[in-house]
């Protein structure tokens, strides 16, 4: 996927300004920045999920030969969930509280495939198993609030990889978890990348994560990318002052 | 902070209009005796359902004269209903600061001066008359006194109870809180109107008007305190755990200071909103009670028992002005709602954050 010169504004004030980046096949691309840097907005803009009031001013998001910012609503819907999936920060809020986890994962199949009920159940249980949930049947029947934070995030990831998307946009997927769980969820991402041949656009404020996971990294500040490159290169040899600052607090 | 809230409030034009209207209505109620040409019980039965008097500024020749009203000639149609016609030869000039029924200004200074009126035997019915030929305008103003004061008194009493009980429950928590809240729930869950009727049933029939009035206030407060208590209690309970209160505690401030400086001010703005939004409930409850004949008794007027005249459908057709008390209730309730909502927008920290 390639983002070219993306600009997003609210009340004619630009909060994402001229952002370009390329996520290679089967790679993990980290978009790093402090809060308010525009990194989450960039992720949401790709799937045109911005809150009302935020407006995409210009730019392209090329994916599979199409510009996601220009295609029609139905075509966009076909991309969402099927080819590009999202994982959010707080799985408690990202799941609908009144539907079971299983129902919500199965919805992905309902929306994009013609699987019948039994096949959907089978697939869902298989997914839950893949993300490391020990008793998939119980989790399938549970409501989000009945699961622990780590379990919920795993289920969320299972939902994201349901249709083997080519790209997952993960917006701070571990920030709400305890440190030990963070590590486990990150490992899961690495495992899934290898298993499903997918790429990940990882949005995070934590350069520590980047160090151990990402192939490429772009650092954002005030809506602009201030530095980007292979993660080894950027972290070893930061050029921009802001990157150096961020980095100095990690080690 | 206060000024900011006030100027924000003033930006809401509806709310300012509501506040002004409420001010006018309350002032009118306060000076009802003076503003009204007649006392609430002044009746002239021959003028049953007399229509609003037309005030004329020109005489027959069309030249400008001081305002006057015509005397009325009463005829009967085939159903023996009264038909009012102007008597061309009887003119009663409208005059200001005239002598009329006796009253005391604000209950203190006895006087007979009224803002306006006409000489006897002429009568002026600004907004028509009721079945007994009493001036609706005068009765509306006097009725406003009762209806509005019941609202304010009722809220004041139930609010005092609510603040006290809610504060105790919220401050002590635990068992005390549990018991008090169960009691509150009981009151809130019960259909108030049935409770109202049951309580009204035990008011002795030999009570005089003032006693009935007080009884109604007490009954309404008795039913209404629970919901306020619940809210106050909830706020105290959550404020107690807020970090700035904890911080104040670690600073060694006394409980009293914490309660007065850090907890109560936060409930006050809510209380003000709650008061504004609950007064209509009391006004409506009094009106309902008086409407069905269990509230304020004739000859005393309240908006509710004035409206009772409009229960007969036939009368509405021939004397539509008897619906006016209903509009007054509507406008007042509306104004309290508008002002209360605007206050909430300005003061409620939840929405202003």
């Amino acid at each position, binding site marked *: 996927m390639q983002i070219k010169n993306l600009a997003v504004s609210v009340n004619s004030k630009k909060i994402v300004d001229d952002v370009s980046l390329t996520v290679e096949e089967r790679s993990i691309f980290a978009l790093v920045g402090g809060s308010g840097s525009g990194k989450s907005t960039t992720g949401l803009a790709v799937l045109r999920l911005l809150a009302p009031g935020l407006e995409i001013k210009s730019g392209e998001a090329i994916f599979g030969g199409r510009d996601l910012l220009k295609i029609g609503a139905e075509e966009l819907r076909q991309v969402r969930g099927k080819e590009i999936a999202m994982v959010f920060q707080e799985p408690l809020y990202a799941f609908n509280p009144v539907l079971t986890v299983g129902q919500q994962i199965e919805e992905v199949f309902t929306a994009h495939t013609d699987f019948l009920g039994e096949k959907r159940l089978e697939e869902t249980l298989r997914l839950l198993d893949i993300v490391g949930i020990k008793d998939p049947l119980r989790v399938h029947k549970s409501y989000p609030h009945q699961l622990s934070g780590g379990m919920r995030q795993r289920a969320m990831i299972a939902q994201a990889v349901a249709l083997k998307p080519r790209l997952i946009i993960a917006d701070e997927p571990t920030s709400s978890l305890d440190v030990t769980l963070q590590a486990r969820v990150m490992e899961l991402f690495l495992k899934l990348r290898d298993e499903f041949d997918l790429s990940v656009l990882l949005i995070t404020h934590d350069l520590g994560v980047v160090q151990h996971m990402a192939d490429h990294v772009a650092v954002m500040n005030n809506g602009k990318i201030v530095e980007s490159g292979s993660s080894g290169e950027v972290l070893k040899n930061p050029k921009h002052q802001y990157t150096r600052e961020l980095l100095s607090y990690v080690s | 902070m206060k000024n900011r809230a006030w100027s924000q409030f003033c930006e809401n034009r509806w709310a300012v209009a509501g506040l002004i209207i409420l001010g006018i209505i309350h002032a009118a109620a306060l000076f009802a005796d003076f503003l009204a040409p007649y006392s609430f019980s002044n009746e002239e039965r021959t003028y049953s359902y007399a229509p609003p008097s037309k005030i004329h500024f020109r005489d027959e020749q069309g030249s400008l004269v001081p305002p006057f009203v015509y005397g009325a000639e009463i005829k009967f149609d085939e159903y023996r209903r009264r038909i009012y016609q102007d008597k061309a030869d009887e003119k009663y000039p409208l005059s200001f600061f005239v002598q009329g029924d006796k009253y005391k200004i604000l209950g203190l200074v006895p006087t007979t001066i009224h803002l306006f009126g006409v000489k006897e035997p002429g009568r002026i019915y600004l907004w028509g008359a009721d079945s007994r030929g009493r001036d609706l305008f005068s009765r509306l103003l006097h009725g406003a006194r009762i209806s509005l004061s019941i609202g304010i008194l009722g809220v004041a009493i139930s609010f005092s109870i609510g603040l006290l009980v809610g504060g105790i429950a919220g401050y002590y928590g635990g068992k005390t809180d549990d018991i008090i809240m169960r009691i509150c729930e009981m009151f809130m869950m019960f259909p108030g109107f049935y409770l109202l009727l049951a309580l009204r049933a035990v008011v002795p029939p030999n009570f005089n008007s003032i006693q009935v009035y007080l009884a109604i206030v007490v009954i309404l407060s008795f039913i209404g305190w629970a919901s306020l208590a619940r809210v106050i209690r909830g706020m105290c309970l959550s404020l107690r755990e807020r970090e700035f209160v904890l911080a104040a505690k670690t600073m060694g401030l006394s409980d009293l200071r914490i309660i007065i400086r850090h907890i109560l001010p936060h409930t006050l703005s809510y209380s003000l909103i709650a008061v504004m939004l609950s007064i209509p409930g009391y006004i409506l409850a009094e009106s309902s009670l008086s*409407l069905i004949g269990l509230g304020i008794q004739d000859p005393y007027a309240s908006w509710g028992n004035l409206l009772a005249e409009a229960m007969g459908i036939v009368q509405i057709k021939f004397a539509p002005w008897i619906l006016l008390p209903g509009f007054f209730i*509507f406008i007042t309730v509306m104004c309290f709602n508008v002002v209360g909502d605007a206050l909430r927008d300005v003061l409620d920290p939840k929405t202003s954050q």
Partner: protein
Amino acid sequence: MLRYILRRLLTILPILLVMSLLTFILMQKTSGSFYDTLKLNPQISPETIERYIKLYQLDKPLLVQYFSWLTNLFHFEFGYSFFYNIPVADVIGGRLWNTFVLSLASLILTWGVAIPLGIYAALHRNKITDRLIQFTSYIALASPTFFVAMLLLYFASQSGILPLGGMHSANYDGMNIIEKFFDVLRHVAIPATALSISSIGALQRIMRGNMLEVLGQQYILTARAKGLPENRVIYSHALRNAINPLVTILGYEFAGLLSGAALLEIICSWPGLGALMLTAVQSKDIYLVMASFLLSGFLLIIGNLLADVLLARLDPRIRYEK
């Protein structure tokens, strides 16, 4: 769940007991005892009088009388109505049903109108239609039910489309079941509408607010990111979450609904419990007052239970201690 229901019952029972005791004693003190009223009434046969004196121990102290009245309740013995000159149970049975019909009609009307309006307004936020709905709701909210009822009655009398009171037409008994249904429907229209107007205003505003709040939640974003069709996002994800809090309110609304219904029964001469209670209070018909009062509490409990059961079915987060 069963325990929860019992707990609910236990919260309402004390107030019924305290209030009935208070009413019982004070009414006797202020307006003469049953005993005297019974003896002085020439229309009641001596046998009946004898029966009730024995049944309610009317020659004993007040407190004893109260408890014998209370125990008799459990045998569905509600006492004797001096005003109607028949046992209270005979008067009251049908009244309970009538009040239920009126409340239910109003409830259906309120929710049927307010919920779609609220959803529509939320989805068209700040458009001209939304503003219009909000403005109308504000006016509706401030309209006193009794006043609305009077206006409606007046217009009905002018147009002659709808009956001006009561619950049945004169020839009701000769109708078949469908005609009967429509006859009651025509009669209930005015009181139910009057009862609903201000509730519709209030409920619509709440529904709109909830819907707007829910639409801003993250799971809506998730649903969209999954590629669900917009209809499904709104009706299967947003709607349920927006309605659930309303069901919670419903429990408390029942009290208001019954109160409002009582007032309108009186104004529209609908033969319900509220109208009955008024007659009873006016004529100091003590047994009737007590029975009406208790039954209103009974209706309330049923309404609340229905709301709770509904909520438990709708929202998995609600668990009444098992």
